[in-house]
């Protein structure tokens, strides 16, 4: 007999629901109503964050168990992961990738250098950090952050998507305001 069934026999069905509530299972399922498709854009990073993003795909961290998937084109994606301090050349490209994504969309910045510039300051060829270029919803600090942190950051993006869904205003209008 499973542990959960034992508890149910002893305390009744209500108890299991309680535990579920405590573990936020129900809200998790509500929060994750659909699987997130993620795309990445390297705007001048040192590659460190990009390898860790690849590591999240690997069997040990396995981002797919959360229903998340890395897709090849921004046109299919819900979440955009940006790494790097945005060089001049990548500025337009980043905007283009952002504009190609369908609404509603979320931007996650992975790494210190995309969030704040980090070691890359006082350079002639940088226009970053990323929030100088597009509006950012989640920052994942670390140089590079661990794969777990990246997964958590992407999962947090769901909250933003949920908020967009809840709000009565059209997602368009809301984002424009954010920009």
């Amino acid at each position: 007999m499973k542990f959960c069934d034992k508890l149910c026999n002893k305390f009744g069905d209500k108890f299991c629901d309680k535990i579920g509530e405590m573990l936020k299972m129900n809200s998790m399922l509500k929060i994750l109503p659909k699987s997130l498709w993620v795309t990445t854009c390297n705007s001048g990073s040192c590659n460190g964050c990009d390898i860790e993003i690849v590591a999240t795909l690997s069997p040990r961290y396995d981002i797919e168990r959360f229903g998340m998937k890395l897709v090849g084109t921004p046109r299919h994606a819900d979440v955009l992961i940006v790494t790097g301090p945005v060089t001049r050349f990548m500025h337009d490209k980043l905007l283009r990738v952002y504009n190609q994504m369908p609404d509603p969309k979320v931007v996650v910045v992975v790494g210190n250098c995309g969030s704040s510039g980090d070691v890359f300051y006082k350079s002639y060829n940088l226009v970053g950090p990323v929030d100088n270029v597009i509006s950012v919803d989640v920052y994942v600090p670390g140089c590079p952050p661990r794969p777990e942190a990246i997964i958590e950051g992407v999962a947090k993006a769901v909250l933003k998507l949920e908020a967009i869904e809840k709000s009565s205003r059209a997602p368009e209008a809301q984002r424009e305001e954010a920009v």
Partner: protein
Amino acid sequence: MSTTYKVPIGPVHVGLKEPVTAWLTLDGERIMDAKLRLGAIHRGIEFMARERNPIQVIYLSERICGICSFSHVLAFIRAIEDLSAIKVPPRGQYIRSLVLELERIHSHILWSGVACYSIGFDSAFHLGMEMRERVMDLLELLTGNRVNYGVATFGGVRWDITPEFAKATRDMIKFYRREFTPFRDIVMEDPIAQARMRGVGVLTKEEAVRYSAVGPVARASGLRVDLRKSSPYEAYSDMPVEPVVPQDYFGAAHGDVLDRFAVRVLEVYQSLDLLEKILDGLPDGPFVAETNLNKVLASLKKAEGVGWGIIEAPRGDDTHIVSLKGGEDNVLWWKVRAPTYASAVSWPLMFRGNELADAPLIINSLDPCVSCMERTLTTNAHGDSNIITKQELIKRCREKTDTLRARGGETR
């Protein structure tokens, strides 16, 4: 009637980890010509270093590239040690070599996985990535970080090898000897993988010499080049390193993607042997010459001159040249020559005559590290970038000599 098309790839593309743009001229499926536009992620690192002191630049040089971060740090540190009087104790040298080999293993396994991914062999990709976590664990155990280790410093390293770490390393060596062979066989003996990689992206031995390819790319074309043999540094002078070339193992070097795969995979075994030798021969004593960074900075402030450091990074020769001026805190100038830049010149050659579908594989077969490479871009005041042509470079070079002459040899 034959029509040619121009197909741009990149800068943001699924098959590429990093931004680089390639324009391919196609006749049907065949690639006739390729042009590359580099400089997408030029960050001006060498420029930034001029406002920082050498210790700050250690951490900047680490972030040139996250995959071969230790190679860049070490090349920079060796350049500074070359021009100043800092000596490294033997134990520090051995630990440096150890981290270099661990890094080579992680980089090569990552590359093999990604190469499998780009030909659509996903199970091998996952197998490789799973295996790579083992060496990442070890790097984390030694340094506390998975990617940018922050372990090297002037005159040695910052962390020592403990008996537990030595044991974990030996366990890892055993693990890889057991588990890596199936991975190699799964890919290299798979007829489909062979068909995708054999004869694709060929660079002949002559071309490799003429276009000065380095590292595994040159070795896959049959050139016996390895800095660990030809100019040994750190602990490599105590242990012989033979360059891994395909003709020793398969009779002939084809210089194609499969050979590059084989060279990298065989180098993993070589690194395992080296790790074992490093652990066996680890000398006792201090692992860093001076722990007080203020003292180090003070001595570097007095140092003057030009120093260089050259390292066999996982991708080939990595050269750093640094100049310090006496009495100044900051680095006077710093030049990085990363291996990918040397090998990237031969990309257009590899493309010729191949199919469009092979393009991402060929790009990946160099194990390109674009973030290392981006250093030849000029920007004008409006932020438009233009690439200097060769003639212009020569012209500028001559002009500079003239101005120098006019100033009577003063560099500044």
